[in-house]
Protein backbone atom coordinates (compact mmCIF):
# COMPACT_ATOMS: atom_id res chain seq x y z
CA UNK A 1 0.00 0.00 0.00
CA UNK A 2 1.49 3.33 -1.07
CA UNK A 3 -0.71 5.58 1.06
CA UNK A 4 -1.23 5.08 4.76
CA UNK A 5 -3.77 7.30 6.49
CA UNK A 6 -2.65 8.04 10.04
CA UNK A 7 -6.27 8.58 11.09
CA UNK A 8 -6.69 4.80 10.87
CA UNK A 9 -3.60 3.97 12.91
CA UNK A 10 -4.75 3.26 16.45
CA UNK A 11 -1.83 1.07 17.54
CA UNK A 12 1.95 1.27 17.19
CA UNK A 13 3.32 1.05 13.67
CA UNK A 14 6.93 0.77 12.49
CA UNK A 15 8.09 1.23 8.92
CA UNK A 16 11.51 0.76 7.40
CA UNK A 17 12.92 2.77 4.49
CA UNK A 18 16.14 3.90 2.87
CA UNK A 19 15.06 7.52 3.17
CA UNK A 20 12.39 9.03 5.39
CA UNK A 21 11.27 12.54 4.49
CA UNK A 22 9.41 14.68 7.04
CA UNK A 23 7.03 17.03 5.24
CA UNK A 24 5.33 16.73 1.86
CA UNK A 25 5.35 20.34 0.66
CA UNK A 26 7.47 21.61 -2.24
CA UNK A 27 10.72 20.53 -0.55
CA UNK A 28 9.57 17.13 0.67
CA UNK A 29 7.79 16.30 -2.58
CA UNK A 30 10.77 17.27 -4.73
CA UNK A 31 13.19 15.33 -2.53
CA UNK A 32 10.87 12.30 -2.55
CA UNK A 33 10.53 12.39 -6.33
CA UNK A 34 14.26 12.57 -6.86
CA UNK A 35 15.14 9.88 -4.32
CA UNK A 36 12.40 7.47 -5.42
CA UNK A 37 13.18 7.87 -9.10
CA UNK A 38 16.79 7.01 -8.33
CA UNK A 39 15.71 3.75 -6.75
CA UNK A 40 15.59 4.53 -3.04
CA UNK A 41 12.85 3.11 -0.84
CA UNK A 42 11.22 6.35 0.35
CA UNK A 43 8.66 7.09 3.06
CA UNK A 44 7.19 10.60 3.23
CA UNK A 45 5.54 11.55 6.53
CA UNK A 46 3.05 14.44 6.58
CA UNK A 47 1.15 15.93 9.53
CA UNK A 48 -1.88 16.84 7.40
CA UNK A 49 -4.17 14.62 5.41
CA UNK A 50 -4.90 14.02 1.76
CA UNK A 51 -7.50 16.20 0.08
CA UNK A 52 -9.19 15.85 -3.27
CA UNK A 53 -10.44 18.86 -5.26
CA UNK A 54 -14.02 18.00 -4.29
CA UNK A 55 -13.02 18.47 -0.62
CA UNK A 56 -11.99 22.11 -1.04
CA UNK A 57 -14.65 24.39 0.48
CA UNK A 58 -15.69 27.78 -0.89
CA UNK A 59 -16.12 29.77 2.35
CA UNK A 60 -12.82 31.14 3.63
CA UNK A 61 -13.48 29.99 7.18
CA UNK A 62 -14.03 26.37 6.17
CA UNK A 63 -10.92 26.39 4.00
CA UNK A 64 -8.79 27.92 6.74
CA UNK A 65 -10.09 25.49 9.35
CA UNK A 66 -9.57 22.49 7.13
CA UNK A 67 -6.41 23.23 5.16
CA UNK A 68 -4.31 25.73 7.11
CA UNK A 69 -2.21 25.27 10.21
CA UNK A 70 -3.81 27.03 13.20
CA UNK A 71 -6.68 28.46 11.16
CA UNK A 72 -4.10 30.56 9.33
CA UNK A 73 -3.62 32.53 12.55
CA UNK A 74 -0.06 31.57 13.47
CA UNK A 75 1.56 34.82 14.53
CA UNK A 76 5.15 36.02 14.85
CA UNK A 77 5.83 37.60 18.22
CA UNK A 78 7.37 41.05 18.38
CA UNK A 79 6.53 44.72 18.42
CA UNK A 80 4.31 44.21 15.39
CA UNK A 81 2.64 40.79 15.56
CA UNK A 82 2.06 39.47 12.05
CA UNK A 83 0.33 36.31 10.88
CA UNK A 84 2.25 33.76 8.87
CA UNK A 85 0.48 31.23 6.78
CA UNK A 86 1.26 27.54 6.43
CA UNK A 87 -0.73 24.73 4.89
CA UNK A 88 -1.37 21.52 6.77
CA UNK A 89 -2.14 18.87 4.21
CA UNK A 90 -0.42 16.51 1.83
CA UNK A 91 1.39 18.89 -0.49
CA UNK A 92 2.06 21.39 2.32
CA UNK A 93 1.22 24.92 1.26
CA UNK A 94 1.42 24.09 -2.43
CA UNK A 95 -2.29 23.26 -2.94
CA UNK A 96 -3.32 26.52 -1.24
CA UNK A 97 -0.71 29.01 -2.42
CA UNK A 98 -1.09 31.55 -5.21
CA UNK A 99 0.77 29.25 -7.66
CA UNK A 100 3.39 31.94 -8.30
CA UNK A 101 6.59 30.60 -9.81
CA UNK A 102 9.97 32.29 -9.92
CA UNK A 103 13.33 30.80 -10.73
CA UNK A 104 16.07 31.46 -8.20
CA UNK A 105 17.34 34.94 -9.19
CA UNK A 106 20.94 34.95 -10.36
CA UNK A 107 21.78 37.88 -8.08
CA UNK A 108 20.56 35.96 -5.02
CA UNK A 109 22.66 32.93 -5.96
CA UNK A 110 25.67 35.19 -6.53
CA UNK A 111 25.23 36.75 -3.08
CA UNK A 112 25.11 33.30 -1.48
CA UNK A 113 28.32 32.27 -3.24
CA UNK A 114 30.00 35.56 -2.38
CA UNK A 115 29.27 34.93 1.29
CA UNK A 116 30.43 31.29 1.22
CA UNK A 117 32.53 30.16 -1.75
CA UNK A 118 31.80 26.48 -1.07
CA UNK A 119 28.26 27.06 -2.27
CA UNK A 120 29.51 27.55 -5.83
CA UNK A 121 30.27 23.82 -6.05
CA UNK A 122 27.43 22.72 -3.80
CA UNK A 123 24.79 24.63 -5.74
CA UNK A 124 26.18 24.87 -9.29
CA UNK A 125 24.24 27.47 -11.22
CA UNK A 126 24.05 25.42 -14.40
CA UNK A 127 22.73 22.43 -12.47
CA UNK A 128 20.13 24.54 -10.71
CA UNK A 129 18.99 25.87 -14.06
CA UNK A 130 18.66 22.35 -15.51
CA UNK A 131 16.77 21.10 -12.46
CA UNK A 132 14.51 24.15 -12.60
CA UNK A 133 13.77 23.56 -16.29
CA UNK A 134 12.67 20.03 -15.46
CA UNK A 135 10.52 21.14 -12.53
CA UNK A 136 8.86 23.91 -14.50
CA UNK A 137 8.04 21.52 -17.32
CA UNK A 138 6.51 19.02 -14.88
CA UNK A 139 4.49 21.71 -13.14
CA UNK A 140 3.26 23.32 -16.34
CA UNK A 141 4.63 26.72 -15.39
CA UNK A 142 3.45 29.41 -17.82
CA UNK A 143 2.44 33.07 -17.79
CA UNK A 144 -1.14 33.79 -16.76
CA UNK A 145 -3.51 33.50 -19.68
CA UNK A 146 -4.99 36.96 -20.39
CA UNK A 147 -8.34 35.30 -21.10
CA UNK A 148 -8.79 34.39 -17.44
CA UNK A 149 -6.84 37.24 -15.81
CA UNK A 150 -9.87 39.29 -14.82
CA UNK A 151 -10.06 43.01 -13.98
CA UNK A 152 -7.84 43.01 -10.89
CA UNK A 153 -4.87 41.72 -12.90
CA UNK A 154 -5.59 43.87 -15.95
CA UNK A 155 -5.83 46.97 -13.77
CA UNK A 156 -2.42 46.34 -12.22
CA UNK A 157 -0.95 46.11 -15.71
CA UNK A 158 -2.60 49.43 -16.57
CA UNK A 159 -1.37 51.13 -13.39
CA UNK A 160 2.20 49.87 -13.73
CA UNK A 161 2.31 50.84 -17.38
CA UNK A 162 1.18 54.37 -16.53
CA UNK A 163 3.94 54.66 -13.94
CA UNK A 164 6.57 53.20 -16.27
CA UNK A 165 7.26 50.22 -14.00
CA UNK A 166 8.28 46.84 -15.39
CA UNK A 167 5.43 44.39 -15.01
CA UNK A 168 4.28 41.06 -16.40
CA UNK A 169 1.69 38.32 -16.10
CA UNK A 170 2.71 36.03 -13.26
CA UNK A 171 4.14 32.66 -14.24
CA UNK A 172 2.05 30.03 -12.45
CA UNK A 173 1.90 26.27 -12.05
CA UNK A 174 -1.65 25.85 -13.31
CA UNK A 175 -2.91 23.87 -16.29
CA UNK A 176 -6.27 24.79 -17.79
CA UNK A 177 -7.04 27.46 -15.16
CA UNK A 178 -10.60 28.79 -15.44
CA UNK A 179 -9.95 31.88 -13.32
CA UNK A 180 -12.17 30.86 -10.42
CA UNK A 181 -9.97 32.80 -7.99
CA UNK A 182 -9.97 29.92 -5.53
CA UNK A 183 -6.24 29.06 -5.42
CA UNK A 184 -5.94 29.98 -1.73
CA UNK A 185 -8.75 27.60 -0.80
CA UNK A 186 -7.59 24.77 -3.07
CA UNK A 187 -8.69 24.61 -6.70
CA UNK A 188 -12.08 22.89 -6.83
CA UNK A 189 -11.39 21.93 -10.45
CA UNK A 190 -7.99 20.43 -9.68
CA UNK A 191 -6.28 22.73 -12.18
CA UNK A 192 -3.35 23.71 -10.00
CA UNK A 193 -0.30 21.55 -10.64
CA UNK A 194 0.52 21.53 -6.95
CA UNK A 195 3.16 19.13 -5.71
CA UNK A 196 0.66 16.63 -4.29
CA UNK A 197 -0.61 15.85 -7.79
CA UNK A 198 2.72 16.21 -9.62
CA UNK A 199 5.98 15.59 -7.78
CA UNK A 200 4.48 13.39 -5.06
CA UNK A 201 2.52 11.49 -7.66
CA UNK A 202 5.80 10.87 -9.50
CA UNK A 203 7.37 9.71 -6.24
CA UNK A 204 4.47 7.35 -5.58
CA UNK A 205 4.72 5.99 -9.11
CA UNK A 206 8.38 5.28 -8.40
CA UNK A 207 7.48 3.37 -5.24
CA UNK A 208 7.45 6.00 -2.47
CA UNK A 209 5.01 5.50 0.39
CA UNK A 210 3.12 8.43 1.90
CA UNK A 211 2.14 8.39 5.52
CA UNK A 212 -0.39 11.18 6.12
CA UNK A 213 -1.93 12.55 9.34
CA UNK A 214 1.17 11.70 11.35
CA UNK A 215 2.96 14.43 13.31
CA UNK A 216 6.65 13.69 13.75
CA UNK A 217 7.88 14.75 17.17
CA UNK A 218 11.49 13.55 17.25
CA UNK A 219 14.48 12.59 15.16
CA UNK A 220 16.21 9.53 16.58
CA UNK A 221 19.99 9.77 16.79
CA UNK A 222 22.30 6.98 17.90
CA UNK A 223 26.01 7.68 18.37
CA UNK A 224 25.95 10.76 16.18
CA UNK A 225 23.93 9.19 13.39
CA UNK A 226 20.24 9.69 12.54
CA UNK A 227 18.38 6.39 12.56
CA UNK A 228 14.81 7.50 11.91
CA UNK A 229 11.91 9.54 13.24
CA UNK A 230 9.11 9.08 15.71
CA UNK A 231 5.68 10.61 16.02
CA UNK A 232 2.01 10.08 16.61
CA UNK A 233 -0.76 9.37 14.17
CA UNK A 234 -4.05 11.25 14.33
CA UNK A 235 -5.62 7.86 15.06
CA UNK A 236 -3.64 7.74 18.28
CA UNK A 237 -0.98 5.17 17.38
CA UNK A 238 2.73 5.73 17.90
CA UNK A 239 4.62 5.72 14.61
CA UNK A 240 8.30 4.97 14.06
CA UNK A 241 10.10 5.08 10.74
CA UNK A 242 13.67 3.77 10.71
CA UNK A 243 15.86 4.80 7.81
CA UNK A 244 19.45 5.15 6.66
CA UNK A 245 18.81 8.78 5.80
CA UNK A 246 16.49 11.31 7.43
CA UNK A 247 15.51 14.35 5.37
CA UNK A 248 13.68 17.19 7.12
CA UNK A 249 11.41 19.21 4.85
CA UNK A 250 8.84 20.57 7.26
CA UNK A 251 9.37 24.34 6.64
CA UNK A 252 11.59 27.04 8.06
CA UNK A 253 9.46 27.12 11.21
CA UNK A 254 8.72 23.44 11.84
CA UNK A 255 12.12 22.01 10.88
CA UNK A 256 14.24 23.94 13.43
CA UNK A 257 11.55 23.29 16.03
CA UNK A 258 11.77 19.55 15.35
CA UNK A 259 15.55 19.67 15.65
CA UNK A 260 15.32 21.49 18.97
CA UNK A 261 12.62 19.13 20.25
CA UNK A 262 14.96 16.29 19.36
CA UNK A 263 17.75 17.84 21.44
CA UNK A 264 19.74 18.81 18.34
CA UNK A 265 20.60 22.38 19.24
CA UNK A 266 24.01 22.51 17.60
CA UNK A 267 24.82 25.58 15.54
CA UNK A 268 22.55 28.54 14.98
CA UNK A 269 19.42 26.40 14.75
CA UNK A 270 16.32 28.60 14.69
CA UNK A 271 18.36 31.79 14.27
CA UNK A 272 18.66 33.80 11.05
CA UNK A 273 14.90 33.62 10.45
CA UNK A 274 14.21 35.67 7.34
CA UNK A 275 11.01 36.32 5.48
CA UNK A 276 9.03 38.52 3.14
CA UNK A 277 6.59 40.58 5.19
CA UNK A 278 3.91 42.02 2.98
CA UNK A 279 1.57 44.96 3.27
CA UNK A 280 -1.43 45.64 1.10
CA UNK A 281 -3.63 48.49 0.01
CA UNK A 282 -7.27 48.48 -0.97
CA UNK A 283 -8.78 50.66 -3.64
CA UNK A 284 -12.27 51.44 -4.84
CA UNK A 285 -12.95 51.44 -8.57
CA UNK A 286 -15.96 52.96 -10.37
CA UNK A 287 -16.78 49.71 -12.18
CA UNK A 288 -17.11 46.37 -10.40
CA UNK A 289 -13.76 44.59 -10.19
CA UNK A 290 -14.99 41.51 -8.30
CA UNK A 291 -11.64 40.72 -6.75
CA UNK A 292 -12.63 37.11 -6.10
CA UNK A 293 -12.85 36.39 -9.81
CA UNK A 294 -10.06 35.87 -12.33
CA UNK A 295 -6.64 34.32 -11.84
CA UNK A 296 -6.01 34.45 -8.10
CA UNK A 297 -2.65 36.15 -8.43
CA UNK A 298 -2.10 36.85 -12.09
CA UNK A 299 0.03 39.98 -12.42
CA UNK A 300 3.15 41.36 -10.78
CA UNK A 301 5.33 44.44 -10.91
CA UNK A 302 9.02 43.62 -10.93
CA UNK A 303 10.44 47.06 -11.63
CA UNK A 304 11.40 47.78 -8.03
CA UNK A 305 12.80 44.37 -7.14
CA UNK A 306 16.20 46.05 -6.77
CA UNK A 307 14.73 48.00 -3.86
CA UNK A 308 13.49 44.77 -2.27
CA UNK A 309 9.89 45.36 -3.35
CA UNK A 310 7.73 43.05 -5.44
CA UNK A 311 4.11 43.92 -6.13
CA UNK A 312 1.38 41.36 -6.75
CA UNK A 313 -2.31 41.25 -7.26
CA UNK A 314 -4.00 39.39 -4.44
CA UNK A 315 -6.84 36.93 -4.62
CA UNK A 316 -8.85 36.85 -1.44
CA UNK A 317 -12.44 35.78 -1.24
CA UNK A 318 -15.05 38.22 0.09
CA UNK A 319 -14.50 37.40 3.78
CA UNK A 320 -10.81 38.27 3.85
CA UNK A 321 -11.25 41.31 1.60
CA UNK A 322 -14.00 42.60 3.91
CA UNK A 323 -11.83 42.09 7.00
CA UNK A 324 -9.01 44.07 5.39
CA UNK A 325 -11.15 47.13 4.68
CA UNK A 326 -10.82 49.95 7.18
CA UNK A 327 -13.40 51.03 9.71
CA UNK A 328 -16.01 49.36 11.86
CA UNK A 329 -19.75 49.59 12.20
CA UNK A 330 -21.73 51.44 9.55
CA UNK A 331 -18.60 52.66 7.71
CA UNK A 332 -17.35 49.12 7.35
CA UNK A 333 -20.78 47.74 6.44
CA UNK A 334 -21.16 50.36 3.70
CA UNK A 335 -17.82 49.35 2.22
CA UNK A 336 -18.63 45.65 2.49
CA UNK A 337 -21.95 46.16 0.74
CA UNK A 338 -19.91 47.74 -2.07
CA UNK A 339 -17.34 44.94 -2.02
CA UNK A 340 -17.50 44.20 -5.75
CA UNK A 341 -15.89 47.61 -6.43
CA UNK A 342 -12.94 47.05 -4.09
CA UNK A 343 -9.71 45.20 -4.58
CA UNK A 344 -6.51 44.71 -2.69
CA UNK A 345 -2.97 44.58 -4.06
CA UNK A 346 0.10 43.68 -2.05
CA UNK A 347 3.81 44.31 -1.89
CA UNK A 348 6.22 41.72 -0.56
CA UNK A 349 9.30 43.17 1.10
CA UNK A 350 12.71 41.51 1.07
CA UNK A 351 13.20 42.28 4.74
CA UNK A 352 16.67 42.77 6.16
CA UNK A 353 15.55 41.94 9.70
CA UNK A 354 16.46 38.60 11.23
CA UNK A 355 14.16 36.78 13.62
CA UNK A 356 14.36 33.54 15.50
CA UNK A 357 12.41 30.33 15.96
CA UNK A 358 12.32 28.94 19.48
CA UNK A 359 10.33 26.18 21.09
CA UNK A 360 7.94 26.88 23.95
CA UNK A 361 5.77 24.19 25.45
CA UNK A 362 6.52 21.91 22.56
CA UNK A 363 5.50 24.37 19.85
CA UNK A 364 7.49 26.75 17.67
CA UNK A 365 7.42 30.42 18.54
CA UNK A 366 8.75 32.90 15.98
CA UNK A 367 10.07 36.30 17.02
CA UNK A 368 10.65 38.97 14.41
CA UNK A 369 11.18 42.73 14.51
CA UNK A 370 11.27 44.63 11.19
CA UNK A 371 14.10 47.16 10.96
CA UNK A 372 13.50 50.82 10.22
CA UNK A 373 14.64 50.15 6.67
CA UNK A 374 12.00 47.44 6.38
CA UNK A 375 9.36 49.86 7.66
CA UNK A 376 10.58 52.44 5.15
CA UNK A 377 9.99 49.82 2.45
CA UNK A 378 6.45 49.29 3.76
CA UNK A 379 5.83 53.03 3.31
CA UNK A 380 7.47 53.12 -0.10
CA UNK A 381 5.58 50.04 -1.24
CA UNK A 382 2.24 51.44 -0.13
CA UNK A 383 2.88 54.70 -1.91
CA UNK A 384 3.62 52.89 -5.16
CA UNK A 385 0.57 50.64 -4.72
CA UNK A 386 -1.61 53.71 -4.24
CA UNK A 387 -0.12 55.49 -7.22
CA UNK A 388 -0.67 52.43 -9.40
CA UNK A 389 -4.28 52.14 -8.27
CA UNK A 390 -5.04 55.78 -8.94
CA UNK A 391 -3.28 55.57 -12.31
CA UNK A 392 -5.43 52.53 -13.09
CA UNK A 393 -8.59 54.53 -12.42
CA UNK A 394 -9.39 54.02 -8.74
CA UNK A 395 -11.82 56.53 -7.20
CA UNK A 396 -9.79 56.45 -4.04
CA UNK A 397 -7.44 54.20 -2.12
CA UNK A 398 -7.55 52.94 1.48
CA UNK A 399 -3.96 52.76 2.74
CA UNK A 400 -4.80 50.94 5.97
CA UNK A 401 -2.00 52.64 7.92
CA UNK A 402 -2.64 53.80 11.46
CA UNK A 403 -1.81 57.44 11.64
CA UNK A 404 -2.19 57.85 7.88
CA UNK A 405 -5.19 58.90 5.84
CA UNK A 406 -8.10 56.44 5.95
CA UNK A 407 -8.84 57.15 2.31
CA UNK A 408 -7.40 59.44 -0.30
CA UNK A 409 -7.39 60.19 -3.99
CA UNK A 410 -4.44 62.59 -3.81
CA UNK A 411 -0.93 61.70 -4.90
CA UNK A 412 0.40 64.23 -2.42
CA UNK A 413 -1.07 62.21 0.45
CA UNK A 414 0.69 59.11 -0.80
CA UNK A 415 3.96 60.98 -1.14
CA UNK A 416 3.51 62.26 2.43
CA UNK A 417 2.79 58.72 3.59
CA UNK A 418 6.16 57.58 2.32
CA UNK A 419 8.02 60.64 3.55
CA UNK A 420 6.34 61.35 6.88
CA UNK A 421 4.36 58.19 7.60
CA UNK A 422 4.72 56.05 10.72
CA UNK A 423 8.17 54.74 11.65
CA UNK A 424 6.77 51.91 13.74
CA UNK A 425 5.90 48.58 12.16
CA UNK A 426 2.88 48.45 14.47
CA UNK A 427 1.17 51.05 12.34
CA UNK A 428 0.98 48.67 9.39
CA UNK A 429 -1.18 45.63 8.82
CA UNK A 430 1.39 43.17 7.58
CA UNK A 431 1.46 39.45 7.00
CA UNK A 432 4.41 37.17 6.48
CA UNK A 433 4.91 34.82 3.59
CA UNK A 434 8.00 32.85 2.57
CA UNK A 435 10.28 31.99 5.47
CA UNK A 436 13.94 31.07 5.28
CA UNK A 437 17.29 30.61 6.93
CA UNK A 438 16.64 28.89 10.27
CA UNK A 439 18.92 25.93 9.48
CA UNK A 440 21.15 27.86 7.12
CA UNK A 441 23.61 26.17 4.82
CA UNK A 442 27.22 27.19 5.52
CA UNK A 443 30.69 25.69 5.55
CA UNK A 444 31.33 27.11 9.02
CA UNK A 445 29.34 25.23 11.69
CA UNK A 446 29.13 28.44 13.71
CA UNK A 447 27.26 30.10 10.85
CA UNK A 448 25.17 27.23 9.57
CA UNK A 449 23.26 24.19 10.74
CA UNK A 450 23.84 22.15 7.59
CA UNK A 451 26.91 21.81 5.41
CA UNK A 452 26.88 22.89 1.78
CA UNK A 453 25.87 19.31 0.94
CA UNK A 454 22.67 19.73 3.06
CA UNK A 455 24.03 17.36 5.74
CA UNK A 456 23.69 18.36 9.37
CA UNK A 457 26.99 19.60 10.75
CA UNK A 458 26.80 17.39 13.85
CA UNK A 459 24.65 14.41 12.86
CA UNK A 460 25.45 11.96 10.09
CA UNK A 461 22.60 10.77 7.92
CA UNK A 462 20.50 13.84 8.73
CA UNK A 463 19.67 16.31 5.95
CA UNK A 464 17.54 19.44 5.66
CA UNK A 465 15.84 20.08 2.33
CA UNK A 466 13.47 23.01 2.87
CA UNK A 467 13.89 26.77 2.83
CA UNK A 468 15.48 26.59 6.26
CA UNK A 469 18.77 26.01 4.44
CA UNK A 470 18.54 29.15 2.29
CA UNK A 471 21.30 31.46 3.50
CA UNK A 472 19.08 34.49 2.85
CA UNK A 473 15.61 35.39 1.71
CA UNK A 474 15.15 35.57 -2.05
CA UNK A 475 12.93 38.60 -2.60
CA UNK A 476 10.76 36.47 -4.86
CA UNK A 477 8.27 33.64 -4.43
CA UNK A 478 10.42 30.67 -3.52
CA UNK A 479 8.50 27.48 -4.25
CA UNK A 480 10.45 26.59 -7.40
CA UNK A 481 13.89 27.36 -5.86
CA UNK A 482 12.84 25.30 -2.83
CA UNK A 483 12.03 22.36 -5.10
CA UNK A 484 15.29 22.82 -6.99
CA UNK A 485 17.45 22.83 -3.87
CA UNK A 486 15.51 19.92 -2.39
CA UNK A 487 16.23 17.93 -5.54
CA UNK A 488 19.94 18.52 -5.00
CA UNK A 489 19.51 17.61 -1.33
CA UNK A 490 18.04 14.24 -2.32
CA UNK A 491 21.00 13.58 -4.61
CA UNK A 492 23.39 14.35 -1.76
CA UNK A 493 21.44 12.12 0.63
CA UNK A 494 21.91 9.27 -1.84
CA UNK A 495 25.63 9.99 -2.02
CA UNK A 496 25.46 11.50 -5.51
CA UNK A 497 27.09 14.75 -6.65
CA UNK A 498 24.70 17.65 -7.33
CA UNK A 499 25.22 17.58 -11.09
CA UNK A 500 24.34 13.91 -11.49
CA UNK A 501 22.29 13.65 -14.69
Amino acid at each position, binding site marked *: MRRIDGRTLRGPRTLRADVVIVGSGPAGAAAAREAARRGADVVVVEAGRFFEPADFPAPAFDAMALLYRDLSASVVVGPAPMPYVQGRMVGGSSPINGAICWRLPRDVHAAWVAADAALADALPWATLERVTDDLEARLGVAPTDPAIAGPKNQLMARGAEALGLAHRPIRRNVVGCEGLGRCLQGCPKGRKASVDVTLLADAEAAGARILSSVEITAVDVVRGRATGVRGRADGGGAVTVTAERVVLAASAVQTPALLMLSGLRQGPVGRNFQCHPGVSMAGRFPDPVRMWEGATQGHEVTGLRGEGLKFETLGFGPAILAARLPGA*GRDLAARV*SDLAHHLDWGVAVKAEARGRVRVWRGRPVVTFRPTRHDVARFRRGLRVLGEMMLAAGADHVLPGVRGGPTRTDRLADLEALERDGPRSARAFTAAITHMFGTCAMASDPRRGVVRPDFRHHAVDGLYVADSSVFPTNTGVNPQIPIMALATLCARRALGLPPDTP
Partner: protein
Amino acid sequence: MRWTRAELRWRDALLEALLPPAGALPGLGDVDLTDFWPRFDAAAPRHLALGFRAAVTLEAAVLPWLCGHLRTLPRLTPDERDAVLRRADRLPLFRDLLEVAKVVGCLALFADPAVQAAVRARP
Protein backbone atom coordinates in the same frame (compact mmCIF):
# COMPACT_ATOMS: atom_id res chain seq x y z
CA MET B 1 -13.58 27.51 28.96
CA ARG B 2 -17.27 28.13 28.45
CA TRP B 3 -18.49 31.64 27.77
CA THR B 4 -20.79 33.16 30.38
CA ARG B 5 -24.25 34.36 29.40
CA ALA B 6 -23.12 37.95 29.77
CA GLU B 7 -20.15 37.32 27.48
CA LEU B 8 -22.42 35.79 24.87
CA ARG B 9 -24.65 38.87 24.98
CA TRP B 10 -21.58 41.11 24.62
CA ARG B 11 -20.28 39.00 21.74
CA ASP B 12 -23.55 39.15 19.82
CA ALA B 13 -23.94 42.88 20.42
CA LEU B 14 -20.37 43.57 19.33
CA LEU B 15 -20.76 41.63 16.09
CA GLU B 16 -24.13 43.21 15.34
CA ALA B 17 -22.58 46.63 15.78
CA LEU B 18 -19.45 45.73 13.86
CA LEU B 19 -21.29 44.72 10.70
CA PRO B 20 -24.85 46.06 10.64
CA PRO B 21 -27.03 45.53 7.54
CA ALA B 22 -26.16 47.74 4.58
CA GLY B 23 -27.73 47.74 1.15
CA ALA B 24 -28.48 44.19 0.05
CA LEU B 25 -26.02 42.78 2.56
CA PRO B 26 -27.49 41.33 5.76
CA GLY B 27 -25.85 42.30 9.02
CA LEU B 28 -24.20 39.88 11.40
CA GLY B 29 -27.27 40.16 13.60
CA ASP B 30 -29.40 38.76 10.77
CA VAL B 31 -27.29 35.67 10.19
CA ASP B 32 -27.76 32.43 12.09
CA LEU B 33 -24.36 31.68 13.61
CA THR B 34 -25.45 28.65 15.62
CA ASP B 35 -23.44 26.36 13.38
CA PHE B 36 -20.43 28.70 13.12
CA TRP B 37 -19.43 29.01 16.78
CA PRO B 38 -18.75 25.33 17.54
CA ARG B 39 -16.66 25.13 14.38
CA PHE B 40 -14.76 28.27 15.34
CA ASP B 41 -14.13 26.96 18.85
CA ALA B 42 -12.83 23.70 17.42
CA ALA B 43 -10.53 25.30 14.84
CA ALA B 44 -9.22 28.45 16.49
CA PRO B 45 -5.76 28.23 18.05
CA ARG B 46 -5.59 29.22 21.69
CA HIS B 47 -4.15 32.69 21.12
CA LEU B 48 -6.90 33.57 18.65
CA ALA B 49 -9.64 32.25 20.92
CA LEU B 50 -8.24 34.25 23.83
CA GLY B 51 -7.75 37.34 21.69
CA PHE B 52 -11.33 37.22 20.48
CA ARG B 53 -12.66 36.77 24.00
CA ALA B 54 -10.57 39.70 25.21
CA ALA B 55 -11.89 41.75 22.30
CA VAL B 56 -15.48 40.96 23.25
CA THR B 57 -14.96 41.88 26.90
CA LEU B 58 -13.04 45.07 26.31
CA GLU B 59 -15.01 46.41 23.36
CA ALA B 60 -18.46 45.52 24.67
CA ALA B 61 -18.09 45.90 28.42
CA VAL B 62 -15.23 48.34 29.05
CA LEU B 63 -15.10 50.66 26.07
CA PRO B 64 -18.67 51.99 26.45
CA TRP B 65 -17.76 53.13 29.97
CA LEU B 66 -14.67 54.88 28.66
CA CYS B 67 -16.94 56.63 26.18
CA GLY B 68 -19.13 57.94 29.01
CA HIS B 69 -21.94 55.39 28.91
CA LEU B 70 -22.74 53.68 32.18
CA ARG B 71 -23.99 50.63 30.27
CA THR B 72 -22.50 47.81 28.26
CA LEU B 73 -22.79 47.59 24.48
CA PRO B 74 -26.01 45.48 24.37
CA ARG B 75 -27.87 48.25 26.21
CA LEU B 76 -26.82 51.03 23.85
CA THR B 77 -28.82 52.30 20.88
CA PRO B 78 -27.52 51.51 17.38
CA ASP B 79 -26.22 55.08 17.05
CA GLU B 80 -24.40 54.86 20.37
CA ARG B 81 -22.87 51.48 19.46
CA ASP B 82 -21.59 52.86 16.20
CA ALA B 83 -20.03 55.84 17.94
CA VAL B 84 -18.33 53.54 20.46
CA LEU B 85 -16.78 51.46 17.70
CA ARG B 86 -15.57 54.55 15.89
CA ARG B 87 -13.84 55.56 19.13
CA ALA B 88 -12.24 52.09 19.39
CA ASP B 89 -10.61 52.70 16.05
CA ARG B 90 -8.61 55.53 17.64
CA LEU B 91 -7.45 53.80 20.84
CA PRO B 92 -4.35 51.58 20.51
CA LEU B 93 -5.31 48.41 22.42
CA PHE B 94 -8.98 48.63 21.50
CA ARG B 95 -8.08 49.17 17.86
CA ASP B 96 -5.96 46.00 17.79
CA LEU B 97 -8.65 43.93 19.46
CA LEU B 98 -11.29 45.36 17.16
CA GLU B 99 -9.26 44.02 14.24
CA VAL B 100 -9.41 40.55 15.79
CA ALA B 101 -13.18 40.84 16.18
CA LYS B 102 -13.45 42.11 12.61
CA VAL B 103 -11.65 39.11 11.19
CA VAL B 104 -13.82 36.69 13.17
CA GLY B 105 -16.96 38.65 12.26
CA CYS B 106 -16.18 38.68 8.54
CA LEU B 107 -15.38 34.97 8.54
CA ALA B 108 -18.66 34.32 10.34
CA LEU B 109 -20.70 36.52 8.00
CA PHE B 110 -19.32 34.97 4.84
CA ALA B 111 -19.53 31.43 6.18
CA ASP B 112 -23.26 31.80 5.51
CA PRO B 113 -23.92 30.50 1.96
CA ALA B 114 -26.72 33.05 1.46
CA VAL B 115 -24.33 35.93 2.17
CA GLN B 116 -21.72 34.41 -0.15
CA ALA B 117 -24.33 34.15 -2.85
CA ALA B 118 -25.57 37.72 -2.30
CA VAL B 119 -22.10 39.20 -2.61
CA ARG B 120 -20.93 37.02 -5.46
CA ALA B 121 -24.14 37.49 -7.47
CA ARG B 122 -23.85 39.63 -10.57
CA PRO B 123 -26.42 42.43 -10.78
